[in-house]
């Protein structure tokens, strides 16, 4: 009865080879997106060394200076100053710290929670699946921006509240995708084979299914980081993120929106920074998905 085919089947999974790294870098989106994020990480880390001025230093004599290429600019203030005379470039550089902190922390935590619940729902089915799926449905009935504002109001403003709010809202993105992927993987022959051979259920989940979901997960985390950066900016914009003396892109955007007829460059600089960062995370995510997914690659 024991057909040898079944026994060797678990081993026929596509092996992970180091040449994947070369494939990754060949993907332009990964190169550009990843390159930009890497640059941003360096800028954020070395902010005190790179920033030309103290981001909090006010000089009312030098308020609302235009950027260097416009008339009336002062040397040394490359992107101009805000109404309090604070250097915009320096504030932008320091603002990247909060943006990246929120992006990395909230995306990885949301991924962790969503993945665990998604794996359990997809693999064990039954009541586990029913309960988790119902919670996800309820979650999806909240407008995310409103819920995030509500949560930050509950937790009190601050960077930890922002991260917590994003995690509480966005774990469902991971949960839904991971659940669907788990269901799809569970149909495949190598899983049937592993079960026939008598692997314990939990071990199949962690050793067989999970590794095959990782590529999708990595791409999703990158996309989520882009979303988190925007949510942080929105919360700062509404005035609910970190305290107003810490420079954030969203806070700068809110200030720029108020003074738009007075000094438009206050809005342009942080908006471009936000756009570039979101785009980079998106390109990286899309590129990773293509590069890591053997089916899409074909």
């Amino acid at each position: 009865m024991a057909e040898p085919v079944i026994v060797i089947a678990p081993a026929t999974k596509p092996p992970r080879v180091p040449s994947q790294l070369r494939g990754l870098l060949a993907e332009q989106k990964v190169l550009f997106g990843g390159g930009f994020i890497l640059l941003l990480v360096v800028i954020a880390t070395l902010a005190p060394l790179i920033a030309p001025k103290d981001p909090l230093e006010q000089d009312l004599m030098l308020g609302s200076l235009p950027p260097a290429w416009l008339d009336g600019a002062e040397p040394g203030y490359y992107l101009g100053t805000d109404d309090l005379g604070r250097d915009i470039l320096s504030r932008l550089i320091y603002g990247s710290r909060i943006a990246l902190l929120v992006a990395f922390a909230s995306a990885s935590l949301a991924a962790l929670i969503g993945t665990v619940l998604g794996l359990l729902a997809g693999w064990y089915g039954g009541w586990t699946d029913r309960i988790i799926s119902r919670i996800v449905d309820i979650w999806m009935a909240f407008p995310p921006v409103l819920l995030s504002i509500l949560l930050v109001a509950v937790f009190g403003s601050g960077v930890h509240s922002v991260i917590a709010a994003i995690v509480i809202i966005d774990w469902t993105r991971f949960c839904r995708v991971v659940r669907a992927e788990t269901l799809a993987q569970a149909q495949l022959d190598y899983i049937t084979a592993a079960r026939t051979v008598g692997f314990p259920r939990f071990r199949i989940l962690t050793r067989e299914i999970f590794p095959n979901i990782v590529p999708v997960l990595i791409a999703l985390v990158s996309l989520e980081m882009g979303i988190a950066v925007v949510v942080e900016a929105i919360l700062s914009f509404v005035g609910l993120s970190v305290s107003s003396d810490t420079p954030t892109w969203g806070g700068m955007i809110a200030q720029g929106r108020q003074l738009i007829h007075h000094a438009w460059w206050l809005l342009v600089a942080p908006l471009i920074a936000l756009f570039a960062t979101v785009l980079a995370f998106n390109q990286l995510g899309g590129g990773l998905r293509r590069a890591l997914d053997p089916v899409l690659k074909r």
Partner: protein
Amino acid sequence: MIAVSILNRLIMAAVTLFGVAVIVFVLLRVVPGDPIAMMIAPGASPADIAALRAKYGLDLSLTAQFGVWIEAVLIGDFGTSISLRRDVLELLLSRLPATLELAFAALIVAMLIGGTVAVIGTLFRRTSLEPAIDTTNGVLLAVPDFVWALALVLMLGVFIPVFPLSGRIDPTLSIDFVTPFYLLESLVRFRFDVFFDVAAHIVMPVLALALPLATVITRILKETLLEAMVQDYVLLARLKGMSETRLVLQEALRNAVGPALSLTGVQFTFLVGGTVIVERIFAYPGIGNMAIDAVINRDLPLIQGLVLVFGSIFIVINLAVDLLAAALNPRLCHG
């Protein structure tokens, strides 16, 4: 069979809405910051404060408060707004139409833009225009409504000031509206001066909400159109001598529109969620803008009402998408 399946979905929708109600209620009871403290005059006596608490039912236990609230909501009583001191249902009904007008206008604009770009991309496939469209669309796919809204403020409000930056209508223009649907009503009443003013106010928020959805529609519709173009029935029509434009519009589009439509439905909930921040940026008087104020003011009855309204809208949209998908796909009907 269909009736049973619809009934099933309705029950599930009711369960979801109840879950939303429970969560928002529990969430709001743990909000630090006393709503009563925000409305009393300085120097009010403890007795006054206690009276106010009793008036808004804040002196009862949590479960009792929830019971009272749910019971009232079921008969259409959403309570009184603490910050605005008006009936919550009345407030919701006065603001909801502005948001609905905005959301549906954005949906239509998104379908028009997304559809047009997808059709053009399909017509010009294998020319240099196609990669240009794909690349641009790929970049724009990453731009969220928040960024669009502010970019539009800069481009069409400041650099080339063509549209008003905030509000729904020029206050000096106001006619006596019978309904709260300004855009529709001014059109139906042939008040074109008013219509163009309301339209000018709504253009930027509509675009900010429509453009992210349009890029999604373009991507999926173009994909399905390209698939359809190599099918046998298109080949047959081509052999009959049908022009390329008619092939795309008449043959391929009809068969490709299903998946795009159901994805659009799902994405429409994101669009409605986006009204919260977009209305804020353009000071547009809808429920989204009101929601942010309600949270900042800790206005519990108003927040509860608003979240229930948003939840209901989301659930109705999802229900409509399911039914639409079933109607468009005969195989699902019998499944």
